[in-house]
């Protein structure tokens, strides 16, 4: 692994940190992808495997109001995200992920934890700790419990630059 040298450009760090605040994706303009669920309410577990650059499975079926426990496993060689949201939310999040790549937080197959924890001023960081998403290095796996509150156009997607556009997304179909 050729760990690319980290280039910290402090001046460029004046990114909108609110975007990284928990649960604030997409500004919540009516369209909603649901809300964080309680593990105890999860009726079933869906395992989602992440490869370079696609998911298996690529569609999941849920009932409105259902809480699902996801086990997300990164089986690829690159950093991938599993993020539940509307297409508009993903589009917004892609800008943030782009900055994370530009600032060396995401480097191909590695996450720079130090960078993620770094205080970027105003108490913000690039932690990427939103409850609707997980960001994993190759080999890692993580759980995410999500309650699908209502119907709507919802996708799970990887917003690492280029991945969504190349087709790393899956459809959430409501029964």
């Amino acid at each position, binding site marked *: *692994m*050729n760990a*690319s*040298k*980290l*280039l910290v*450009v402090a001046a*460029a760090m004046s990114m909108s940190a609110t975007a990284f605040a928990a649960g604030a994706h997409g500004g919540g303009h009516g369209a909603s992808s649901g809300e964080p669920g309680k593990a105890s309410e999860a009726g079933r577990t869906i395992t989602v495997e992440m*490869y*370079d*650059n*696609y998911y298996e499975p*690529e569609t999941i079926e849920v009932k409105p109001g259902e809480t699902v426990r996801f086990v997300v496993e990164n089986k690829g*060689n*690159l950093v991938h995200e599993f993020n539940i949201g509307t297409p508009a939310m993903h589009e917004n999040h892609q800008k943030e992920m782009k900055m994370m790549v*530009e600032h*060396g937080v995401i480097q*191909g197959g590695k996450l720079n934890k130090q960078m993620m924890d770094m205080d970027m001023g105003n108490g913000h960081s690039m932690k990427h700790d939103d409850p609707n998403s997980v960001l994993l290095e190759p080999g890692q796996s993580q759980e995410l419990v999500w309650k699908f509150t209502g119907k709507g156009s919802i996708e799970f997607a990887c917003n690492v*630059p*280029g*991945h969504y*556009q*190349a*087709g*790393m*997304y899956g459809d959430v179909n409501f029964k």
Partner: protein
Amino acid sequence: MKTRLLTGFLSLLMPALVLAGEYDLTVDRVNIDTGDFVKEGIGYNGKSPGPVMRFKEGENVKINVTNNLDEMTSIHWHGLILPFDQDGVPGISYPGIKPGETFTYEFPIQQAGTYWFHSHSGFQEPDGAFGAIVIEPEGREPFRYDRDYVVQLTDKHPHSGDRIMRNLKMMPDYYNREQQTVGEFFSDAAENGLMNTLQDRMAWGDMRMMKADVEDVQGFTGMINGMGPDQNWTGLFEPGERIRLRFINSSAMTYFDVRIPGLDMTVVQADGNNVQPVNVDEFRIGVAETYDVIVRPKDAQAYTIFAESMGRSGYARATLAPEEGMEAAVPQLREPARLTMADMGAMHGMDHGSMDMSGAQDMSEMDHSTMQGMDHSGMDQGSMTMSEKGPSDPFYAKGSGIVPTAANGGKFLSYADLKAQDPLYEDREPTREIELSLTGNMERYTWSINGVKYEDADPIRLQYGERVRFKFVNTTMMTHPMHLHGMWSILDAGAGEWNPVKHTISVAPGTTVYMETEVDAPGQWAFHCHLSYHAAAGMFRKVIVEGGPDATQSKAAVATEEGGDA
């Protein structure tokens, strides 16, 4: 690695389910109608470009090629990994295909992606003898799309290849209609001052070099899939669909800057090998390169695919639309590119700061001290911050006049952005380095490697199993797309094990570019600049791979001995 070895053994022990396909191609005289002119040329199965050959990874193909011309012909499968005697280069792979004769190619398809094929005889390729190859992978594609189109570019010229070569030998600027004029002198003088402009012209005149020497052969009509700008090839889509566009540059001489105003493009493959997706607004496709991009038009409107030549002397145009007949605006050509002293860098080792006038605005923030022998390590991070400052790309000389910029001010693809999606080879130290100076003399229209033309050159000898690092030092003012047959070219893009695997490496003027090759294919191979008239003028080598398994006995065995336990 162990599991992979095991998989290898298993797949060997299991009875092979071998696909086999037989295909026929005829080589014919055809008429090519560009919309601007009709010209007799050469095509396949009665058309130029020829058909799209669709193969499946793992298939054993048999291709019967019948020569209906009254001259020798050949077909080279550009980018395919195959036994050398199937590579289709007369004088290197085989003698060629005689008039009236049918030659049957047989080789296993060991890869997937977008490639192309073309004649390797005389100037048949510029005269129209080329087609596309699309290979479906054994497994799934690592990306999703609803439909795909081949977008095959060419620079069709009203003159035959032989005539162009002869004219270039007689008058090297025969086709250059973007030369600096009296008018440009005065407009430059108004902008940069009379003395500066005079000094600039004198400096170039002293070298007998032209700032306008970006495109040797102008006067072509850019074509996409055999259709000129007015004939407007159209690819249909349903709004919201993802479309995979397989761009292939089959031009004789022309690099194109490609954009689709209104659409973001995600580059997913380069030269047939998947790359980590890169979102771009525009990309430059060198001669013989391929780039696969995914676009997602959401609106029910037409979008123009606009491919502007690097020197801005011409363009190709096509359309993506929900229905036939729809059109979008066709952009204007941008101003012709002008080389700067930086592009002459490797040639004269001048002080790059003092000479260039017209590019002064590009250069204000750049450091000229580190131009030669670029260090690509850590470049992936560096390139991004540099691009925020002004047009800069580690694969162009600093202050170069031909650094591409996106027409909409957005992201222009750089070689530094290309990272292998799934590296084909283990990264390892090269066993040795071979330096190849790309050399030439524009006023004589001679092109060579290390100052020696092919006619006078000894072959480059490689040993099977070694990993060779090639160092290209471009001492000329032109950009050369270097193509090694038979083995992959691992471009040193500063990404270590993620370095992209290509078949054609473009080397800009005044730069040094490295590529590494795992010497895993026995036999003899061609290695040349893919600009037709440069190759014909001598920028060409034979490569002999010594040792290794017999190509006929183990067609599938194409990896290195060391690779197994690497």
